[in-house]
């Protein structure tokens, strides 16, 4: 008795085996470079970065840089010096791996910066792996567990300490000396970049939320949000304004935070700090051991802030309990608390209404504050090419890289000189953002246990938004206690080798 396989099955099996056998190893090309990527000749060692960054081939937002001298420190010594020997010898190809967060901005910006870098170091290539936000952190964790040799990690500011504590990223003092660091970034920015006296990760950009508003709607309602910082609203005044324009479900008064989920510490955690006077426990948000939040997160003042947030949704109903996508951009919310990337999103979505912005309100008896800090470039501890990676990081975070980045992303730059000289931040609407940042900017609580805290915070905010008949104080105390018990394991963070 003979047996025959039906022809189609044989075909499938053969195909499958052939494919499985012939799969390539990790493919060579990585960056999705637009077709017009320049192919520079071998760069001369003495080439210093030009003061004005090369204009991008694609249409970038039209912010022309300030007069050349002020834009970048011009000493060639600052530039990443190609390490290649003198003319003749071709340097070995270097391939760096970079993991970060997915967004059009990051994609454009990073690719453009790489192209610029390749004018100086043509042998360097970078494989950008950009993931959706919710999957980025698990992947970094999986890589850490498997000791995958990633070279550069785009770490969210509050996670830098946690990564440093766990040895996931390596210190970079060797390439970033104290003077360079002090010159390039403000002390606020450095709060999360440095850990236990060592420099770990320079910031990619900064951030600071302000309150954007739909001018068509506010004009119609006869509201005039203050243009000057000195006249900025209190939360009581702001609430009045929100209620005036509130008309659910077509239009809500305010959307507090980016995206359409209830939120996490970055924006939803503002009110609890605003509720305390500067320097008070509520304002500090965390104890001096950088671990304990009982007594700070659930301080009666802080609870006032939590309650105000809760009431926006359940009592005054000026915010949508179940988030509306692109609420402000779709004209379904009149006010919007967000950093200045709102302007880029506005353009990208093709929204068509007049808008303005004003400073975040302050709570009576409390203070004004905006949460700062954004992504940082960190060096993977398992990287096999630390020197090359550090050089590229230096370029990314340096004046040239920061400028290219700002041109595409349009969010508050972290590079001190850039921030001080960009004309954008000297006039509306970005002026408010710059001032808010300088005068009231504070990073989120800086602690090794931030991921644990933020995970709990997400739950907490969700409950504040959806819950009715809440005992906010009790909820806050429960969270604080849970967070402290989860972060207890980090007690040795200041002395751990």
């Amino acid at each position: 008795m003979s047996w025959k396989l039906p022809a189609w099955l044989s075909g499938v099996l053969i195909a499958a085996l052939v494919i499985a056998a012939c799969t390539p190893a990790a493919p060579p090309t990585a960056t999705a470079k637009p077709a017009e990527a320049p192919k520079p000749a071998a760069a001369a060692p003495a080439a210093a970065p030009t003061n004005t960054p090369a204009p991008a081939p694609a249409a970038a937002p039209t912010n022309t840089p300030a007069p050349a001298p002020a834009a970048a420190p011009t000493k060639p010594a600052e530039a990443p010096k190609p390490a290649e020997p003198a003319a003749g010898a071709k340097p070995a190809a270097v391939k760096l791996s970079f993991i970060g967060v997915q967004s059009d901005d990051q994609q454009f910006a990073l690719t453009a910066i790489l192209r610029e870098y390749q004018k100086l170091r043509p042998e360097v290539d970078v494989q950008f792996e950009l993931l959706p936000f919710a999957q980025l952190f698990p992947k970094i964790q999986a890589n850490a567990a498997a000791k995958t040799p990633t070279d550069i990690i785009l770490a969210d500011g509050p996670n830098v300490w946690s990564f440093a504590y766990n040895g996931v990223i390596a210190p970079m003092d060797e390439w970033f000396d104290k003077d360079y660091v002090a010159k390039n970034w403000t002390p606020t920015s450095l709060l999360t970049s440095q850990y236990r006296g060592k420099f770990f990760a320079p910031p990619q950009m900064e951030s600071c939320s302000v309150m954007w508003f739909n001018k068509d709607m506010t004009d119609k309602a006869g509201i005039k949000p203050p243009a000057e910082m000195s006249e900025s609203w209190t939360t009581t005044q702001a609430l009045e304004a929100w209620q005036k324009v509130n008309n659910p479900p077509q239009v809500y008064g305010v959307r507090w935070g980016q995206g359409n989920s209830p939120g996490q510490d970055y924006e939803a955690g503002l009110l609890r700090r605003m509720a305390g006077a500067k320097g008070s426990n509520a304002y500090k948000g965390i104890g001096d051991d950088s671990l304990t939040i009982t007594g700070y997160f659930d301080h009666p003042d802080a609870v006032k802030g939590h309650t105000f947030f809760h009431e926006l949704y359940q009592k005054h109903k000026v915010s949508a309990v179940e988030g509306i996508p692109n609420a402000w951009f779709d004209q379904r919310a009149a006010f919007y608390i967000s950093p200045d990337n709102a302007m880029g999103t506005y353009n990208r979505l093709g929204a068509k209404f007049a808008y303005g912005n004003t400073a975040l309100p302050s709570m009576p008896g409390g203070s004004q504050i905006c949460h700062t800090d954004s992504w940082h470039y960190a060096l993977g501890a398992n990287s096999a090419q630390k020197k090359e990676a550090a050089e590229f990081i230096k370029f990314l975070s340096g004046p040239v890289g920061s400028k290219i980045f700002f041109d595409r992303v349009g969010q508050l730059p972290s590079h001190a000189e850039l921030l001080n000289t960009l004309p954008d931040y000297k006039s509306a609407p970005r002026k408010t953002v710059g001032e808010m940042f300088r005068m009231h900017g504070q990073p989120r609580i800086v602690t090794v246990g931030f991921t644990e805290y933020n995970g709990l915070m997400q739950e907490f905010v969700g409950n504040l938004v959806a819950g009715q008949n809440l005992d906010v104080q009790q909820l806050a105390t429960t969270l604080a206690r849970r967070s402290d018990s989860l972060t207890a394991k980090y007690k040795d963070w200041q002395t751990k080798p």
Partner: protein
Amino acid sequence: MSTRSDAAVTPTLRSGAGAMGRAVEVIARYTLYVVLGVLFLLPFVWMFFGSVRREIEIHGYMFPFSINTIVPVEWTLQNFLDIYGISEEGEKGGLRFHRGLLNSGIIAAAVVGLSMLFNTMAAYFFARLPFPRKNLLLAFVLATFLLPFEVTVVPLYLVVSELGLRDTYLAMIVPFYASPFIVFMLTQFLGSIPKELDEAALVDGANYWQILWSVVFPNALPALATAALIEFQFIWNLFYWPLIATSSLDLQVIQVMIASQTTDRTIYWGRTFAGLVSAVLPVLLLFLGCQRFYFRGAVLSGMK
């Protein structure tokens, strides 16, 4: 020997009631068609039309419900142009969903091909072949899908890394060349084929391999086709594992590309829909092609 009309496979209304009864039945049937169609398809109809709308329009006409809730006011192919990297926006953003479709296709074909072979062999073993304490072995097989994937994903990644498969096509193929779920399912199906057939073949001097392919296989076609379909759609829709196991853009599968349209600030609904429409079509076509094959297929012809 009764003829096998498929209409009689399940108990049906015998035609004693006459033409009136038949008309009622037809009306009832078509009503049910419509109800089922609406129930199952409404989200997709919305999504399909959403893929040809401008981004800002997609949620703009929800309330009150009108024809424009579903049907676009302004029809546009922009989303598709974006995701295939044809438009400038798409090209600059590095979008190339065609590559994602190709990658998904490659690993799906490979996995289905390999797993059909190995799963069938394993199911044949459990259902038919003599072996001491087979049931214990089967229990071991079943135990493997009792741990949630989220817990084993990192250890699996460690194993795959150690094997040097990280960031290759093989990383997405090799862990799935056999599947406990499919083995279990096929064991059930193969078990219901009468054993007399095997015994008859054994008497004729056939070995196990020959029995498998000439006797068991033809009778199990509906089950095998079902298994192939299930396996295909499992791999096609797999998202988390390819995300963790590979880094290169060239290896990205379609689901990861679709998920990348969700950033922390905004979800590009239009592109997500367009991507989803692109991703659903191949599976649907496969299903349409296969279902004629196995729904009308061979059933226990040996019994006659």
